[in-house]
């Protein structure tokens, strides 16, 4: 883009979001209040599976301040929660009702709901609601035999298959076959802000409002409007500050519907703020899969075939994501490697636990663990180095774009660009891998239990197919960028401001970015699947470019200079290479372009433009991560002595923000590898219902991390060349820690499960002693 000034793209600029947030002037949904609002409190099942016999609300209704209490009968006209991408006939009978009707299927399932004057008395009343449930047998594992979801409906709701090539032939001619049985523990995003929603009915204009939306406001608006029988023009969603998303938010949960229906029927705004115990029992969980994977390899370690059978623990109901995570699991497992033939079969099974859905890098945290364990096992079996076995299989940069007959999120897998071997070499060098072998030998001789491991991964981002943005410049020269995006704290506004300011030649701090508002723009993709930067930023770029062209054209006319000679800096249009001389401000141009302005001529009114960006395929950033660990034999505690994250992002708009995403993601990945697990007993009772049980890393648990951020393989699929970074830090961490721990133990039979808690490590050490 022609500009005298240094491009803003690639600069680590401080965020425009920060000022209100550091001042404590952010507005999260719990901070929002409407006059005469009621508080909603959900009465939840304390039994994992049962048939509801009776619900007694009599005592609860006597609590002072209680306005109403509803059960399923009171909302019998409201249907179950639909799937985000539309009808899926075979899954329809499994949809979650907003309030449990006959059956309850997980501890925490909403059974009744209390509306009261404040949160304190709402909770008092909820505790007095008596629910009589006849217990039914509990299925607490996806690899247990399926049972009955309802009469004639199996808890095995679907089987997903993806495959290509001749599996049987490949296994028949294999030199070696390697088999593993692996499990990833149940964990989730657990943002620091719990969920919340306010339903408000603007009676005067007949508009129903959902405040506290997140992640995919436009998509959700469509679904909610359909569920409630309203036109989308009569339903609007409003996003405020959001305290972390990680894939958990933006789901349509029962509570979102309840506040809307209640606002309509009770004629008062209805506010619901989830508490932490509820969150740990009811917000989407994720990751819990068991994989039985086998590989056929030749004597050089090349993957002739991979065959995988996995059990996907979906919890009690399919969420709005339906089968997506299991489908992604099938499609993305091969990662950056050549695979001759492939078959993945996923058993999508319902269990009597909290329902599951996306969590940052869904399907990839799991498959990276599984695939990289497999490669380490192949290396061991063939007596090859872990590095060599990967190099033998890596797709080469000359093969790009590399297509595979698999699909991820309904998009055929097609890697756009990547130098996997090149990045691996860079990382090996940066981590001093060659020297490490000897150092580890010496330390082991001294009795230390130390080891190093690594994992390669491909991420996916930029899910399209299309996004749009609208930019308007006002008569003061202020720029407003209206997007259908969403902010969950990742710096969305700053990125959009940088892109638009770079093209428009203004100070990025003078750009106001709108997101999460269905009443400001009709279409939006929200923010998920690491798509905001790729899709929305490119759409903003298109719109900004159009505005720039309009501005230069108008300026050219007013200044009587050829627009090709003009440029913009600091909001002023002037001749290139000449700061002096005739100039005009963007604001003045906006004035000149007003509808009634005579200066406008035949030009379309407004210094504004709509921009669309379409992308046929997703983009595929990639990376690898390395760890050096030491294990304390007395406790099983893992210390991470060194950690490297290498990542090719294509192009970084704001490197500081990218690093922030990577480190933040890494720490979550570390949580899933060592600390975090949602545990249940055999009766389906959740055991991890407070922060004393569900352990997330604090500063003390986080090692120093080196980040090698590369831009060697920009994406050819968008003008900015960007690939996204939201899920890069987290995706391979489970795989990396497992690899390093296995190397430390020098035992290749035992590391099969995440998280690697101290107790599990200790148990492995004990098993090794006994042998």
């Amino acid at each position, binding site marked *: 883009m022609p500009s005298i000034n240094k491009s803003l793209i690639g600069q680590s600029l401080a965020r425009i979001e920060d000022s209100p947030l550091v001042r*404590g002037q952010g507005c999260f949904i719990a901070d929002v209040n409407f006059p005469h609002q009621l508080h909603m409190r959900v009465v939840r099942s304390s039994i994992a599976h049962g048939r509801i016999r009776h619900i007694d609300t009599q005592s609860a209704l006597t609590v002072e301040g209680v306005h109403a209490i509803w059960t399923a009968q009171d909302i019998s006209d409201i249907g179950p929660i639909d799937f985000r991408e539309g009808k899926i006939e075979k899954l329809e009978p499994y949809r979650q009702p907003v309030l449990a009707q006959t059956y309850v299927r997980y501890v925490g399932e909403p059974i009744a709901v209390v509306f009261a004057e404040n949160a304190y008395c709402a909770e008092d009343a909820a505790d007095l609601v008596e629910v009589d449930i006849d217990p039914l047998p509990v299925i607490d594992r996806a690899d247990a035999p399926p049972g009955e979801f309802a009469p004639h409906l199996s808890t095995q709701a679907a089987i997903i298959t993806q495959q290509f090539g001749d599996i049987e032939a490949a296994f028949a001619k294999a030199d070696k076959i390697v088999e593993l049985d692996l499990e990833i523990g149940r964990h989730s995003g657990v*943002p620091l802000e719990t969920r919340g929603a306010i339903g408000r009915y603007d009676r005067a204009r007949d508009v129903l409002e959902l405040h506290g939306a997140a992640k995919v406001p436009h998509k959700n608006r469509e679904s909610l409007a359909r569920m409630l029988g309203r036109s989308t023009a009569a339903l609007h969603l409003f996003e405020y*500050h959001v*305290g972390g998303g990680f894939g958990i938010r933006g789901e349509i949960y029962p509570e979102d519907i309840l506040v809307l229906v209640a606002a309509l029927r009770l004629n008062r705004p209805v506010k619901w703020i989830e508490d932490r115990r509820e969150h740990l029992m009811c917000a989407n969980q994720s990751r819990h899969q068991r994989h039985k994977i086998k590989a056929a390899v030749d004597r050089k370690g090349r993957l002739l075939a991979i065959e995988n059978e996995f059990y996907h623990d979906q919890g009690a109901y399919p969420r709005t994501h339906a089968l997506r995570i299991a489908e992604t699991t099938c499609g993305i497992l091969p990662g950056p490697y050549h695979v001759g033939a492939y078959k993945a079969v996923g058993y999508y099974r319902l269990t009597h636990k909290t329902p599951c859905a996306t969590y940052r890098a869904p399907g990839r945290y799991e498959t990276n663990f599984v695939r990289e364990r497999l490669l380490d096992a192949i290396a061991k079996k063939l007596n090859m180095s872990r590095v060599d076995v990967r190099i033998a299989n890596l797709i080469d940069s000359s093969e790009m774009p590399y297509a595979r007959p698999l699909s991820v999120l309904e998009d055929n897998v097609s890697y756009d660009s990547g130098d996997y071997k090149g990045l691996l070499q860079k990382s090996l060098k940066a981590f001093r891998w060659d020297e490490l072998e000897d150092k580890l030998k010496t330390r082991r001789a001294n009795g230390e239990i130390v080891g190093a491991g690594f994992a390669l991964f491909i991420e996916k981002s930029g899910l399209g197919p299309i996004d749009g943005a609208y930019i308007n410049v006002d008569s003061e020269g202020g720029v407003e960028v209206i997007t259908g995006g969403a902010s969950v704290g990742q710096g969305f506004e700053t990125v959009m401001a940088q892109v638009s300011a770079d093209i428009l030649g203004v100070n990025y701090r003078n750009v106001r970015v709108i997101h999460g508002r269905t009443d400001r723009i009709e279409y939006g993709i929200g923010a998920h699947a690491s798509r905001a930067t790729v899709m929305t930023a490119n759409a903003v770029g298109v719109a900004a470019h159009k505005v720039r062209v309009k501005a230069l054209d108008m300026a050219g006319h007013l200044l009587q200079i050829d627009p090709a000679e003009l440029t913009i800096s600091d909001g002023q249009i002037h001749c290139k290479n000449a700061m002096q001389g005739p100039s005009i401000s963007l604001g003045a141009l906006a004035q000149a372009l007003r509808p009634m302005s005579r200066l406008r001529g035949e030009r379309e009114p407004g210094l504004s433009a709509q921009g669309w960006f379409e992308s046929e395929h997703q983009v595929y950033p990639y990376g690898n991560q390395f760890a050096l660990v030491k294990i304390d034999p007395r406790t099983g505690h893992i210390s991470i002595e060194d950690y490297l994250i290498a990542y090719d992002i294509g192009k970084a708009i704001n490197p500081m923000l990218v690093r922030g995403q990577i480190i933040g993601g890494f720490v979550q990945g570390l949580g899933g590898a060592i600390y975090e697990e949602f545990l249940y007993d055999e009766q389906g009772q959740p055991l991890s219902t407070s922060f004393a049980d569900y352990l997330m890393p604090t*500063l*003390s648990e986080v090692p120093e991390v080196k980040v090698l951020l590369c831009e060697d393989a920009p994406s050819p699929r968008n003008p900015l060349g960007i690939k996204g970074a939201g899920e890069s830090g987290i995706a391979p961490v489970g795989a990396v820690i497992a690899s390093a721990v296995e190397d430390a133990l020098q035992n290749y039979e035992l590391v099969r499960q995440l998280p690697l808690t101290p107790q599990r490590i200790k148990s492995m050490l004990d098993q090794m002693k006994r042998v």
Partner: protein
Amino acid sequence: MKIPVHFNLNGRDFKMNVEPRKTLADVIREDCGYTGTHLGCEHGICGACTIIVNNQTVRSCLMFAFQADNAVIETVEGLSDEQSLHPLQKAFVSHHGLQCGFCTSGFLMLASGAFRDRDYVSDDEITDVLSSNLCRCTGYENIVKAVRHWLLDERKINAEHK
């Protein structure tokens, strides 16, 4: 049965009648209108609700409002004035020490409270104190950088510090 509670919050006097069971965090947020103090867990582990009471760093979700009767309370809103940011807040901005911002008030009050009466702070203490609170977005790296930058400006650590 409501009881009278009175305290000074960010320089202003507040008098109100509240139920004994109402937490200090809820009273500050709802009755006093200062919503910068956030509730992340309500059981005293995440630290998002950290404030300063009578010069001590405390978790406001673990106090009933009546326990702050006659106290002097500081919350994040009191760190800066209309015009400029507190140096610690500036450091958070320049070091990208926040992403979603939900834990930020808690960290700001934790750092400004825990280190205020100290002449010198060791690396271990910085780690020890900052390990009190949870953050789910940043991975802590930049929070540490921001706090160290501020402590350096306050001359409570030296530049040669790790």
